[in-house]
């Protein structure tokens, strides 16, 4: 019942908002639907806490500790982003950057996007997961090019073609997985693509076919994660779309893509009895960290800056899953959570900062602390949090990842440390003048609603000091499930 509500509410919301998306109260309708989804996700989480993992609807859907926390996170960030987008979109309308037609498209697609992500997370069928991932891309393509500027059209087209091609590779990987599974599970019924069934027989799957399948799956879903060298679409897509979309793309979609990669990795590694899938994850992850942290120095656009930071963090998470073992997996899961919360908070502040200055160019944004202290401090604290300054949760997860790397893969530690330092210097050097620089602008009248920013950062701070026991037990269970190391 709660699962049905989680999946059906966004779809219903998309339908309703497709007709009333430009209504005066449409932002509130959007929030209402997101609230229902969040409540249902909470109920689902409580159920998993009480009764453990479960499957639904003829094994077609399932929740376990690995995906339930992502469902809750997705529903939560979906809700706060809807709250943030309410005043944000009103200002965009007042600035005449949005028309009512575009607003309708935006609202309907926002709900559809959240719905497809939740479907990708909860489905047990790997084929359906692919369908949902592709649908998540398609529902955001037109939002990236929403402003119809040359740059946003380029971004939308790139996003569409690169992710389309990437995800086609993932489909081929899924087909190969099906071929191998059909041998063991039989073609009758559809059980040959159900993850829980595959997981039970993973030792019997033909290893050579599975290794080819993994290459295609990693390249395919890796394109969506934004792993180097398949990351080209990501900065454009995150920079050009409306800010609420940047926040959910960066905070949620990348997590869902990583989730898909890790699910596949568990199966393949169980079949191969060798660690090369992990080695590939480590390689791609490390390459992403290196390229992204050095690319930070070339950025002139505030949203591109943080988009590259997302690539860096996705690299860190992929690297940690590649190392495997209880500690690294725990840290990777924690990092997924805190990155998602922190990055969306940063995009909220950055969006308002760009609105106040009338430009996304870093050089045009100056002295936020005088123009609008809440936005300025939100951006500053968010940046410090994402850079891994101690009391915040990002520090905890990065510290765990670094110490595990030091123990298991000492060669990687200096590379990671240098990259963290480079990213620290690059981001701080750009954020500091934006917040504290001199400005001739006066303090602006409308105060933005930044409650979501501080709620997110508050949770990240809490997670840095104390991980609640139910969350820790989920992380531990999921880490055992993912294995490796």
């Amino acid at each position, binding site marked *: 019942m709660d699962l049905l509500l989680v999946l059906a509410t966004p779809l219903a919301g998309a339908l309703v908002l497709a007709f009333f998306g430009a209504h005066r109260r449409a932002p509130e309708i959007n929030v209402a639907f997101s609230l229902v989804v969040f409540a249902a996700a909470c109920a689902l989480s409580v159920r998993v806490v009480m009764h453990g993992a479960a499957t639904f609807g003829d094994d077609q859907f399932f929740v376990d500790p690995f995906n339930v926390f992502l469902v809750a996170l997705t529903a939560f960030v979906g809700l706060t982003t809807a709250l943030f987008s309410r005043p944000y979109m009103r200002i965009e309308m007042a600035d005449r950057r949005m028309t009512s037609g575009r607003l309708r498209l935006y609202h309907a697609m926002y709900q559809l996007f959240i719905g497809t992500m939740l479907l990708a997370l909860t489905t047990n069928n790997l084929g359906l997961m692919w369908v949902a991932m592709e*649908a998540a891309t398609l529902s955001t*393509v037109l939002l990236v*090019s929403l402003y119809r500027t040359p740059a946003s059209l380029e971004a*939308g087209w790139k996003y569409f*073609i690169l992710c389309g091609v990437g995800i*086609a590779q993932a489909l081929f990987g899924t087909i190969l997985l099906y*071929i191998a599974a059909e041998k063991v599970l039989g073609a009758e019924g559809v059980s040959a693509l159900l993850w829980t069934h595959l997981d039970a027989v993973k030792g019997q799957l033909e290893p050579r076919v599975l290794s*080819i399948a993994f290459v295609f799956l990693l390249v395919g879903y890796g394109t969506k994660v934004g792993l180097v060298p398949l990351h080209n679409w990501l900065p454009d897509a995150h920079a050009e779309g409306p800010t609420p979309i940047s926040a959910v793309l960066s905070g949620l979609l990348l997590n869902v893509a990583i989730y898909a990669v890790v699910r596949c990795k568990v199966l393949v590694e169980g079949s191969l009895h060798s660690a090369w899938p992990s080695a590939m994850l480590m390689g791609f992850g490390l390459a992403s960290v290196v390229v992204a942290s050095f690319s930070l120095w070339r950025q002139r656009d505030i949203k*591109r800056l943080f988009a590259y930071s997302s690539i860096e963090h996705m690299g860190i998470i992929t690297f940690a899953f590649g190392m495997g073992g209880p500690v690294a997996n725990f840290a990777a899961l924690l990092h997924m959570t805190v990155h998602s919360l922190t990055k969306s908070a940063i995009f909220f502040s950055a969006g308002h900062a760009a609105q106040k200055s009338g430009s996304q160019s870093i050089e045009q944004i100056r002295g936020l602390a005088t123009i609008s202290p809440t936005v300025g401090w939100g951006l500053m604290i968010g940046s410090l949090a994402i850079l891994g300054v101690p009391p915040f949760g990002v520090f905890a997860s990065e510290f765990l990842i670094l110490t595990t790397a030091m123990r298991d893969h000492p060669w990687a530690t200096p590379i990671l440390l240098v990259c963290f330092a480079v990213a620290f210097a690059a981001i701080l050097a750009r954020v500091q003048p934006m917040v504290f620089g001199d400005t001739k602008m006066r303090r602006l009248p409308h105060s933005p609603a930044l409650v979501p920013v501080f709620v997110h950062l508050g949770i990240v701070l809490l997670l840095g000091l104390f991980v609640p026991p139910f969350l820790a037990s989920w992380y531990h269970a999921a880490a055992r499930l993912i294995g490796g190391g």
Partner: protein
Amino acid sequence: MPPIPFVMQLLNSLAALLLLLSFAMLAQRRVVTLVNLFALQGGVLCAATLLLAWRTGDGNLYLSAALTFAVKVLVMPWVLHRMIRRLGVYWDTEPLLNIPGTMLVGVLLVVFSFGLAQPISALASTATRSAVGIAIAVILLAFLTMITRRKAMSQVVGFLSMENGLFFGAMSATYGMPMIVELGVALDVLVAMVVMGVFFFQIREQFDSLDLDRLESHKGER
């Protein structure tokens, strides 16, 4: 060596035809002909599915043959032709790599595909397993078509042709994916078509051209 049944021979020649059409698409610069070749490829795919359905008596395969016919032979080529007429894009510009060069790379890709297909077809239980290599080749050739073209329209046809290859691969190695997955994939492809159409008009409105060269250097980087 036992004689190969006639149906299998027919299926294998259809597979060969599919590969031939991929090469023809790789060499074709007229956008209208490209779309016609794509429609023909869909037709061959549909025929192969029907043949296989008749041989195995699998009801799902009849359904997916009908789906292929409706989507890939009728709807998509019709939509693409309409777009070509309304947007007035008839020729692609000179491809990034000249055509003989592209063909050579294509031949290498085919050799590579057959190497890659070896372990997969060894595992597949179906009668058509020799076609797996061709399916991979079609996918990679479509990929090559996308890389070497500059017009948005040709890239899209390449993308759709890649989907044909994927479908053929699934069919020849396992007699098709579970129905719900196949329906979902078809839905996604249809929605992708709509999104592309919207995109074409937006790009056209903004740049007065569908030449993707104009889409460069709008980045906020140094």
